């Protein structure tokens, strides 16, 4: 930071002296060119000198975010967003129904509930068109009965990223989204994580 201040001040002082000399000898146009070059140099110096500082703070913020995310993944503090707007027509039942059903019309956007990476985009006889997102720490989310997908395997997503469209594919009787959360491969109640 101190280096940046010094560099900018130094450039400014030299340019100012040059400007004053040129004005004194009636070379206003050349003096204006000096100001232009000085401003560009100051911007470049700022970029070069502040980048390491910004990168350092960015790394710290990332680290804090990851820590917060790990904590919320472990505790499940209802921080995950709903994948689609609509009424929940069927809740999680550990034996009969391994996720939530959210009613919606065909073509409604379905969004990722949390930051992660798409690991599966495929057809399944039960889930129809389905997408699975890996959120780390053994947590996965599954979106089933979709009419279409807008992501591919390997794509990173954040909460709110549109990943597909609500549909009525697979073993489904009416347009809806089937949403599951799995922890280490075992289905758990999504309401534990959803806002």
């Amino acid at each position, binding site marked *: 930071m101190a280096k940046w201040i010094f560099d900018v001040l*130094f450039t400014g002082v030299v340019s100012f002296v040059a400007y004053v000399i040129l004005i004194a*000898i009636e070379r206003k146009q050349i003096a204006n060119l000096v100001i232009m070059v000085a401003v560009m140099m100051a911007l*470049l110096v700022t970029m070069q000198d502040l980048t390491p500082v910004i990168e350092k703070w960015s790394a710290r913020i990332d680290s804090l975010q990851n820590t917060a995310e790990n904590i919320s993944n472990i505790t499940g503090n209802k921080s995950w967003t709903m994948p689609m707007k609509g009424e929940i027509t069927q809740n999680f039942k550990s034996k009969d129904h391994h996720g939530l059903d959210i009613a919606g019309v065909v073509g409604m956007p379905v969004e990722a509930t949390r930051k992660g990476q798409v690991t599966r985009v495929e057809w399944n006889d039960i889930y129809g068109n389905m997408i699975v997102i890996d959120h780390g720490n053994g947590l996965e989310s599954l979106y089933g009965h979709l009419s279409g997908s807008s992501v591919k395997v390997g794509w990173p997503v954040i909460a709110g990223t549109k990943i597909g469209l609500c549909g009525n594919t697979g073993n489904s009787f009416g347009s809806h989204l089937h949403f599951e959360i799995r922890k280490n491969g075992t289905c758990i109640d999504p309401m534990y994580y959803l806002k």
Partner: protein
Amino acid sequence: MGEAAKQAFGPSSPGFVIILLVMLGVGSYLGEMITTAIGKGQISAMIRTGTLFSAILAVVSVVWKLLTIFFNFTQGKM
């Protein structure tokens, strides 16, 4: 201080153009003074115009260099 000055305004650095512009300005001023004193006003005007063109050319080349550095920087090449 000396090292910083060398880095920012040394002969191969973009800042050198500021020194060059001052030298051009002073040189053309002296040239103008001399040519006016010996009654060659037309040459004096030519020096002035020529200096301005030279200054613009010098600045354009440096601006090009600075823009190249800037775009390299934004692409993470620095």
